[in-house]
């Protein structure tokens, strides 16, 4: 599998660990352990400092909550998982009737995921459509061919993706999502701060990612302004450890926003406001 697929495996490994906690698990992903093979736990052990494990758990729950909130409060019945990886939301969340979930990722990953979920007896709880496409190319036509309707409002899910892209690629992706977003469309997304990429204490972690062919490239200290420039209006922004984002489960102090040089992650829900 391609290098970025291995990152999908360690994400799955972290979700397995969270799911197996007794008493205070933030979600239950019964498929995660099987989806983490073969390298997920090994990579998690290699990269596992810096709050990575609790962060993935908190982020997973925040995105689960984003699905619930956006679908409950509005007319959105079209959800697109951009670089779906080993995401099992289509199998484990409760969805309103009439919802369709499109999962976009490259063919090898989608085939492998399907084979594993089928062996596990996984059944989607929603109309689920696989879209095999290379996100580095023009993937919107493939999404439309799969039945996606840009005239209907959409919730886009881009989880654990943006740090793997260059700034130019992130901007291009945000504009592409905007171009296919009817009024009332939403985006759930996460970013790291620039300081996280710069901090001397991140360098061994970042060096490992680079050596494994999956360098982290993009971060922002001003997610509101950054998203606004591509037409996305931030409606909810939290950092891990905040209320509604793993409060009590985050082993670090949440630093005030005005403190400079802080390694941060941003968890964001934004609404498309047009460009």
């Amino acid at each position, binding site marked *: 599998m391609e290098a970025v697929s291995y990152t999908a495996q360690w994400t799955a490994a972290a979700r397995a660990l969270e799911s197996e906690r007794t008493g205070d698990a933030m979600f239950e992903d019964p498929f995660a352990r099987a989806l983490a093979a073969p390298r997920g736990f090994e990579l998690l052990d290699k990269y596992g*400092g*810096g709050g990575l494990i609790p962060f993935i758990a908190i982020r997973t729950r925040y995105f689960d909550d984003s699905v619930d909130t956006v679908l409950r409060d509005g007319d959105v019945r079209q959800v697109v998982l951009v670089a779906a990886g080993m995401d099992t939301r289509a199998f484990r969340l409760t969805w309103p009737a009439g919802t369709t979930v499109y999962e976009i990722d490259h063919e090898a990953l989608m085939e492998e995921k399907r084979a594993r979920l089928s062996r596990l007896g996984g059944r989607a709880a929603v109309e689920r459509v696989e879209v095999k496409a290379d996100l580095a190319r023009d993937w919107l036509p493939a999404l439309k061919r799969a039945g996606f309707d840009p005239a209907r409002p959409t919730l886009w899910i881009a989880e654990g993706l943006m740090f793997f892209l260059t700034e130019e690629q992130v901007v291009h992706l945000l504009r592409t999502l905007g171009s296919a977003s009817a009024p009332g469309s939403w985006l759930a997304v996460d970013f790291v701060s620039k300081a*996280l990429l710069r*901090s*001397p*204490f991140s*360098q061994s972690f970042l060096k490992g990612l680079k050596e494994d062919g999956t360098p982290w490239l993009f971060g922002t200290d001003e997610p509101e302004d950054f998203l606004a420039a591509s037409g996305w209006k931030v409606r909810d922004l939290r950092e891990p450890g905040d209320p509604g984002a793993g409060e009590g489960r985050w082993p*670090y102090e949440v630093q005030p926003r005005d*403190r400079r*040089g802080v390694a941060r992650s941003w968890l964001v829900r934004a609404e498309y406001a047009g460009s």
Partner: protein
Amino acid sequence: MASAGIEEIRSWILSRHPERDDVAPDENLIESRLVDSLSFVELVYAIEGASGVEIDFDNIDIRDFQTLSSIEKAFFAAV
């Protein structure tokens, strides 16, 4: 004898790692994962609080933060 300031930093690290009894002066804090990219900022504020020195995030030399000895040398040196 270690300064009171560096003892404060040692205590701060130990308070975050209840599994540990002590941190040796030359133990690498980063390699041992006693300090990581997220707790680093807390370490910096702990050092600022204990030393009165203001630390400029844009000009940080990681070598100053690698061990308790290097922290002591960089921020708690006797004047």
